[in-house]
């Protein structure tokens, strides 16, 4: 037994040691919250001073409205009238250029082009083309920057989602929100700095899994915390019956003593994480009810987000909650809205999905703007890849479907130092290839980090003998979309 303990102690890594040493004089020194990792200079995990932006950030917080399942760019923001003209004709091989296909259409004999069944019109001073499915998003055309030339390496949902969220297809890497929490720290220590909100639309859905908001190899305080979609977004937050606040406080103090003792014995930093999380939960008992109380929302707020915002678990309610969380200093609020996987029955599904997200997405932008928060909050709207310009299966009258397409798709961003009222990048007339200004997922991550005041090449973490970054070994800041 004694021998085992020795073994364990020998296995305690330098990181463990440093964290432990830091706890000793951290509170006496400059302040554990402010400059904690600067104390150890070059010996820390990152070359950056952690917990602060490296240079003045354009955006302090992010709200990522992830449209899970991949909305079609051809029915949203990438207007391709040629497809309507060539409706039913074969996709020319010169355009496809041997692009690999998913198992769902690889064996298809024909690839009939299919035009959008929804009309497009131009909006705002930028003249951005936006589909009739999104009248409310069209009304904020001058506040958003549409990037039409996103591209990804993956062609199936899970790897593509994982790639978008963690910078690698294989998983086990920290997700974007965890990197932000690690690099920038928390603004409000009464709430988790990375929260996740889930909703499900009426279209064909694809799953989301907790690996998408994982802390990976980072400390588990950086893990995304899911707020549940019921009336009670954080479960078990209330004191058990018969316990008042003071008795909860006493219990936590006692527990912290035990935990501190355990930490002294074993040196496992996860114990400290646990102590911190208990303390945060205690403060969340006050912080969360302030956020989830919708009774004081004005009629105008409800009209802005749509009446669904009063029904917990809907996309609209999550958008409203996201605004409140973000306003309260949560660095990264990640929404996932499922149901965009339109392999078939696209016309109906897109209509229902758009109905769910259009008003609330636009409402969120308007709400942030009118509170003077849009310029410090970056909002991102988009899915994991695009959809093919040809029909999956046969065109069935007015109905059709589209398969996965990684080479170009549209997302939009607003606020937080992104140029408003602009359309970035050009795709070909077929909506299949990029002809100008491609933006890879790594570029996207580099840009988002840049907007948050971090050089993506310098936010690193040493793990398994090498330094890791969100952008891996790639990524260039897309200066063209930065205001």
């Amino acid at each position: 037994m004694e021998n085992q303990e020795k073994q364990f102690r020998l296995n305690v890594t330098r990181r463990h040691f440093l964290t432990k040493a830091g706890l000793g004089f951290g509170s006496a020194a400059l302040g554990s919250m402010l400059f904690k990792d600067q104390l150890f200079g070059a010996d820390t995990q990152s070359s950056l001073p952690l917990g602060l932006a490296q240079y003045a950030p354009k955006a302090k917080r992010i709200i990522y409205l992830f449209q899970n399942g991949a909305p079609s760019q051809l029915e949203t923001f990438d207007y391709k009238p040629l497809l309507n003209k060539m409706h039913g004709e074969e996709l020319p091989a010169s355009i496809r250029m041997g692009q690999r296909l998913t198992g769902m259409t690889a064996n298809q004999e024909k690839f009939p082009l299919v035009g959008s069944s929804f009309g497009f019109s131009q909006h705002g001073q930028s003249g951005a083309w936006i589909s009739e499915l999104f009248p409310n998003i069209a009304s904020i055309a001058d506040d958003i920057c549409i990037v039409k030339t996103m591209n990804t390496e993956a062609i199936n949902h899970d790897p593509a989602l994982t790639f978008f969220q963690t910078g690698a297809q294989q998983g086990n890497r920290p997700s974007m929100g965890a990197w932000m929490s690690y690099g920038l720290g928390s603004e409000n220590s009464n709430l988790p700095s990375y929260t996740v909100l889930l909703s499900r639309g009426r279209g064909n859905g694809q799953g989301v899994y907790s690996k998408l908001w994982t802390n990976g190899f980072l400390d588990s305080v950086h893990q995304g915390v899911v707020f549940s979609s019921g009336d009670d977004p954080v479960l078990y937050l209330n004191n058990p019956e018969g316990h008042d606040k003071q008795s909860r406080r006493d219990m936590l103090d006692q527990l912290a003593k035990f935990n501190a003792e355990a930490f002294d014995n074993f040196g496992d930093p996860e114990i400290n994480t646990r102590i911190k999380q208990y303390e945060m939960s205690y403060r969340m008992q006050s912080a969360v009810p302030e956020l989830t109380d919708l009774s004081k929302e004005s009629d105008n707020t409800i009209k802005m987000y749509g009446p669904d915002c009063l029904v917990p678990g809907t996309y609209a309610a999550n958008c409203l909650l996201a605004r409140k969380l973000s306003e309260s200093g949560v660095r990264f609020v990640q929404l996932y809205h499922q149901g965009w996987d339109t392999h078939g029955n696209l016309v109906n599904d897109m209509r229902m999905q758009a109905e769910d997200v259009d008003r609330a997405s636009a409402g969120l932008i308007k709400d942030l703007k009118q509170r003077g928060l849009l310029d410090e909050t970056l909002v991102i709207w988009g899915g994991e890849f695009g959809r093919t310009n040809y029909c999956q299966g046969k065109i069935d009258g007015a109905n059709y479907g589209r398969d996965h397409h990684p080479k170009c798709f549209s997302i939009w961003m607003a606020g937080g130092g992104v140029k408003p009222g602009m359309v970035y990048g050009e795709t070909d007339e077929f909506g299949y290839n990029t002809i100008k200004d491609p933006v890879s997922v790594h570029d996207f991550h580099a840009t988002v980090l840049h907007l948050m005041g971090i050089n993506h090449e310098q936010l690193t973490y040493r793990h398994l003998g090498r330094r890791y970054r969100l952008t891996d070994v790639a990524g260039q800041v897309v200066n063209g979309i930065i205001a």
Partner: protein
Amino acid sequence: MSRHLFVLSNLLIVLQVFLLLFCFLDLSVLPQLVLFAGRFHPVVLHLPITLIILLVPFSIYLQRRTDTDDLSGIFDLVLHYIALISTLTALAGFLLAAEGGYNQDSLVFHKWLGVAVAFSTHALVYIKKAFVKNTIVWNSAMLTTLIVMVAGSHYGGNLTHGEGFFAFKQDVKPTITIAEFTAKTTVYDGAVQPILAAKCMECHNDQKTKGGLNMKNLASMLKGGKSGSMWVSGDPDKSLMIERMLLGMDDQKHMPPKGKAQLSAAEILLFKEWIRAGANPTKTYHSLAVTDTLKTIITSIINTAPVEKATKTYSFSAASASAIEQLNSPFRRILPLASNSPALSVKFYLKEKYDLNMLTECKSISEQVVEVNLSNMPADDKAIEVLSSFENIERINLNGTAISGKNLGLLKSNKHLEQVSLASTAVGYPMLDALGAFPSLKKVFLWNTSLTEPEMAAIRKKFPKIHWDLGYIPDKNELLKLTKPRLLDEEKRIYSPGELIAFKPQMSGVQIRYTIDGSKPDSLASILYTKPFPVIGMMKLRAISVSPGWKTSDTTDNTFFLKGFKPDSIRMINEADKQYKGQGAITLTDLVKGTPGNLNVNWLGYRDNSFKIGAYFSKGEDIQQILLSTVESIDGYVMPAKKIIIKGGDSPKSLKLLKTIVPEQPKEKRRRQLIPFVIPLDKKQYRYFEIEAYPVNVLPKWHPGKGDKGWVFVDEVFFY
């Protein structure tokens, strides 16, 4: 004359002869070891400066005293030493200059002025002796020496620190700023020159040409330095510049020298590739192919450039870390805008923790605070008074606070205030005039205040330079659909007598109208929901939300059941299908309803067997009705039972047929739904009931699985 002084004055004469020789000889031929002595020039040069300056007060002191005899000897000695040290400094200076690398223009002045200082300090020794009584001659000689020394030092300073070192200006540290590449920007102007300017030109410029190399412009670079040309076009491996950059840090010839800002790997690569591409000064960035290595490197360097640009500089100094730490808490967070910025933002959290003191305490960092966020805190007008003392504040967020707006004018003293957020406050039109007069105010946010659109138009007209934001105003013509009424308990479908059904509260002004007979609810005629109500038998509740100015909601549609008599035992006569066994017989009386959406839980499914159970009541209740709850799902081949048979008696052995029902079958595909069968019985008491329901054995022709066997699913049996 003492021996000491004698030696000193003769040594001085010898050294001055050397100095005279140095003025006319080429010293660069001297051996390295001798030249090395020149390195002591910077070590000793401050001594004559100090001594000559001190000479002035010393001399004045002596002139004011009468009993100076004992001190004048010392004064003489000091004069000798000043001359000696000045001469040595000048000699060393000559040797240092011989090593080269200095701008000749500045050097000439420095050199001759330095020599002049050495000679004139020597002259002072004799002037002092010759004009003992004539203070005018002495004073003017001394002051001349001082002036010559100051002038010489100035040129020396220029040599070392660069011209304009004494000019007042900020930003002494060169940073690489790469301007945007236009179509005409050459690679040389856009990338090569900025890096040279930042990292090499400190020592290779007009003033200081170390190694005889000047990098001022392309022409001067092409001349090369003492060791030869900087590069060989097209061949980086033979280029001296690249060689020097790649030498080890400890190599004497490594460039930039140890201790100076070093080149990054990308920057060295850039020079290499530029030389490889021919070092063409007219090649433009845009003419390079996307895949060109040079272009890739430049792009990667440009991409790090905005880092420098983005940081706003402030003239005030940073607050002490301890002051910040003292104020920081989970309820008051103070953060620098960036890691190297002195500017701070302050944000408050949790209403219950806020009081005015929390803000007042921040006065200790009032100079550094540029952002204060009090949103949703119960802060009142007193907070404005405190905020007015934060001299550098730029942004204030007061959204949702309790301020009245009456004293907003106090913030006029905040000269840098750019943005004030006042959404959801009591601020009204009359208080905005005060804001209009603020010197640097740019944005004011007024959503959800009492402000009307005409008032807004007026204020915009009055102060057009400020962006007044009234926020979202709903379109009166747009009707939005209300949300369906939601049940307080969304899961519960079976109620005990006395338990009540309740709806969740709706937004104000919304009414819920409902029916319990399965008919479509009407916005006027149906029952208005005012309070919770009981379940009567099996109840089909349909409800809508209505409100003027809104579209009526979709219908909430649910069936509720009243809890009946519970059998003392219930047994399965036929087993349910393996896949849909539920919890066994208990599933039927556990008072948990299954949902049509998920047949895997709370349901019993039958296909090969019929559903057949026995229920036993030891007391023999007065049962008038049996309710069999089933489901229909066309896609899942689940149909209403083909036939339902109820038998009753005192024991399983003595049963008689009570009822046979042949349910109506669907004629076409329809949505999944619950199908409850209410079966009335004769008013006769039985202790034992047997209930059997047969699945459809041949699916109809219109069905996608025509000819196949159907299923029957049961989730609950009620006895009333």
